[in-house]
């Protein structure tokens, strides 16, 4: 039993007054055995195996994600095209984003196609006769508006006395920013005029006017996506476009029937007119069928294809005008 205790006079550890240098080095001697990883610093760009493993796992996960995404997209296509029981409005809101992006593969550059932007709106002028409204161009216009900032305007030329209100609003409501033309990438000016043939003008110095709805449709389509690389496929698209415009739109009833039969057999093999992808041929055939009024009397495959076209949702401006 201690009689009394004496408080310690000095503390436990002896404080060493370390010199305050610029920076301190870790104590080489004290650290030994603490870390289980490499004893020397990483050299020659070697990657820490743990990091490597982490990266490998991440890559694996991303790959699986992409596969999943492709599978979902594939599924969604089959769901919203033939034999869908979905409500039209639902499906159109679902697919406008995915389908329009997925429908046209390949990128296009406006500057490369139309010439360098001179700091002013690049305006495409289309002169159309109100007696024959160009349905394909209306469809292409709505596709263009989704892809670029398009300033659309409709004018009536003095050679035409008056035009129905439907034709005046066929390009949709005026854009809120339409007072500032320079904010837009592309201008789409539709003029209802007494012209014998539809005409498009773009650059007065460098381009002659383009005549005929088929040709203007080809021009506008190329602003959205390039033609298929395969020349055979590209020719097939062109052939169907010509068939649509010359025989479906302007031909006799016999010619209509012949074209519908050909369409029927083509659509028996593929979901779309030219193959597995939606193309200009589909737009052309659908619109010409609509304007010639031969849709109700079409064979089965054609009817199915018509429904799938309508499910895509791009064709509402054309349908609205015909009704």
């Amino acid at each position, binding site marked *: 039993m201690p009689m009394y205790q004496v408080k310690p006079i000095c503390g436990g550890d002896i404080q060493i007054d370390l010199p305050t240098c610029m920076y301190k080095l870790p104590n080489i001697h004290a650290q030994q055995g603490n870390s289980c990883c490499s004893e020397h610093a990483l050299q020659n760009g070697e990657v820490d195996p743990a990091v490597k493993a982490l990266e490998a796992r991440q890559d694996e996960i991303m790959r699986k994600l992409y596969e999943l995404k492709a599978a979902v997209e594939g599924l969604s296509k089959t769901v919203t095209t033939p034999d869908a029981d979905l409500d039209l409005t639902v499906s159109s809101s679902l697919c406008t984003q995915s389908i329009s992006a997925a429908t046209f593969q390949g990128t296009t550059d406006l500057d490369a196609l139309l010439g360098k932007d*001179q*700091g*002013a*709106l690049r*305006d495409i*002028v289309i*002169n159309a006769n109100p007696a024959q409204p160009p349905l394909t161009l209306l469809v292409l216009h709505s596709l263009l508006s989704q892809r670029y900032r398009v300033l659309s*305007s409709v*004018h*009536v*030329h*003095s*050679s035409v006395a008056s035009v129905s209100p439907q034709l005046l609003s066929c390009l949709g409501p005026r854009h809120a920013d339409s*007072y500032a*033309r*320079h904010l837009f990438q592309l201008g789409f*000016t539709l*003029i209802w*005029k007494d012209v014998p043939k539809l005409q498009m*003008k773009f*650059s*007065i*110095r*460098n381009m002659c006017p383009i005549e005929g709805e088929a040709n203007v449709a080809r021009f506008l389509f190329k602003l959205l996506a390039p033609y298929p690389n395969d020349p055979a496929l590209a020719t097939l698209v062109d052939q169907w476009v010509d068939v649509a415009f010359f025989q479906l739109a302007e031909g006799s009833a016999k010619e209509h029937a012949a074209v519908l039969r050909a369409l029927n057999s083509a659509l028996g093999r593929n979901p779309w007119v030219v193959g597995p992808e939606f193309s200009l041929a589909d737009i052309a055939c659908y619109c010409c069928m609509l304007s010639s009024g031969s849709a109700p009397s079409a064979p089965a495959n054609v009817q199915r294809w018509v429904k799938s076209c309508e499910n895509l949702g791009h064709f509402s401006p054309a349908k609205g005008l015909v009704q």
Partner: protein
Amino acid sequence: MTKEEVQGAAEEDQQVQSKKGLKKQQKEAEKAAKKAEKQAKLAAEQQGSEEDDFSKDRYGVSAMVQSQQKLDRTLTRVQDLTTERADQLIWLRARVHTSRAKGKQCFLVLRQQQFNVQALVAVGDRASKQMVKFAANVTKESIVDVEAVVRKVEQKIESCTQQDVELHIERIFVISQAEPRLPLQLDDAVRAEGEGEEEGRATVNQDTRLDNRVIDLRTTTSQAVFRLQSGVCQLFRDTLTNKGFVEIQTPKIISAASEGGANVFTVSYFKTSAYLAQSPQLYKQMCICADFDKVFCVGPVFRAEDSNTHRHLTEFVGLDIEMAFNYHYHEVIDSITDTMVQIFKGLQDNFQTEIQTVNKQFPSEPFKFLEPTLRLEYKEGVAMLREAGVEMGDEEDLSTPNEKLLGRLVKEKYDTDFYVLDKYPLAVRPFYTMPDPNDPKYSNSYDMFMRGEEILSGAQRVHDAQLLTERAIHHQIDLEKIKAYIDSFRYGAPPHGGGGIGLERVCMLYLGLHNVRQTSMFPRDPKRLTP
């Protein structure tokens, strides 16, 4: 020679003389006889004709109409002479355009404003030879009262406006005789330039026309032009009134030059001097600040510019518009362009006769436009010009040739003769133009073009007194001179904008004419003060 010889010679001379004299006498006698015969014949004729003039009271020069009596006679208009009136006996008053006698007949062309009709006086049981002679001698441009029967013709009379009928005159009286020598012939005045050169016939040049304006205005072309001009004014008033605009009258004698001191006329005003208004700009804006909301005014504008061009006058009629807007000055542009389009449509629908008449002498392409009007930005215009090879800076004003080139390019691309160029650079506009909110190099101003020539300059105006003062200082304008103008914005001013057009220029460009003096009745330019 001997006396006898001289005598003999004299005798011989006498004899010779008497022979010559005899011959002379004989000749004179023959002449006298012939003369006497002629005189006797004439006298006989005259007597005969005086005797035969049974239609003495059917023709002649009437006494000057001093309102001696009030006749209840209806005069038919020449334009109403159609086959519907066949075989009716009518009275009409018109001018004698031409008259030519052919044997026992005299053909007259009677003209009334834009219309003319063929008339015929033939020797018969109603008309004597003297009457036909009288009709053939009536001077051109005299005003005559004619009573005639309207007759159908088998072959159309191509040279007259009334092609299906002609008048068979029963009575013809001259109401106002014209002097025989006219300073210019109306047929020449109506002839197209090219046609004149080809056929070697005369045309009348502009100075002669303007010196004898009273006669020149009688031509069918002039009549048509000024009727169309009246139509423009009428349509302008009607369209704006329907949009809720109020017509105002602004003073033309003002105390301070509104747009810069260089181009004003000075008038002596009692003990001081005053100026003739260059534009109703100040007063239009004051009306807006006085809560009239939408105003327009039609009145003379005086510009003392020493420009002798085809499109400048020192005095012209200005049609000015000013309106308050809600949020964006494009509301003003839309209103103005809609008014212009309504005017064009009205002219297209109601004045086709006049347009065709003018086109006969001055052929041109019909005027085309778009509805709603095409509006391009200044940058786009510059880009189009650069593409066509013109080098110009971003903030440079458009020169007249560039404006015309741009007009042609726009016509090529959009097929319109009328368009608006919006967002001009701030540096080239007057001090009261509102700058663009997003880009200080540009302004909220616009110009409108017809057939490539400027007809209207307008903008959103600065409605804030402080900003206005700053802009005025920037343009080095004496603030004292515009104090009253700036004061009008100190007590609450709505955002507003507008523009003004020249009536003569609009008519000239609509019809495709080449000189503004053709659309101004009595034009004023640096070299002309009369008529």
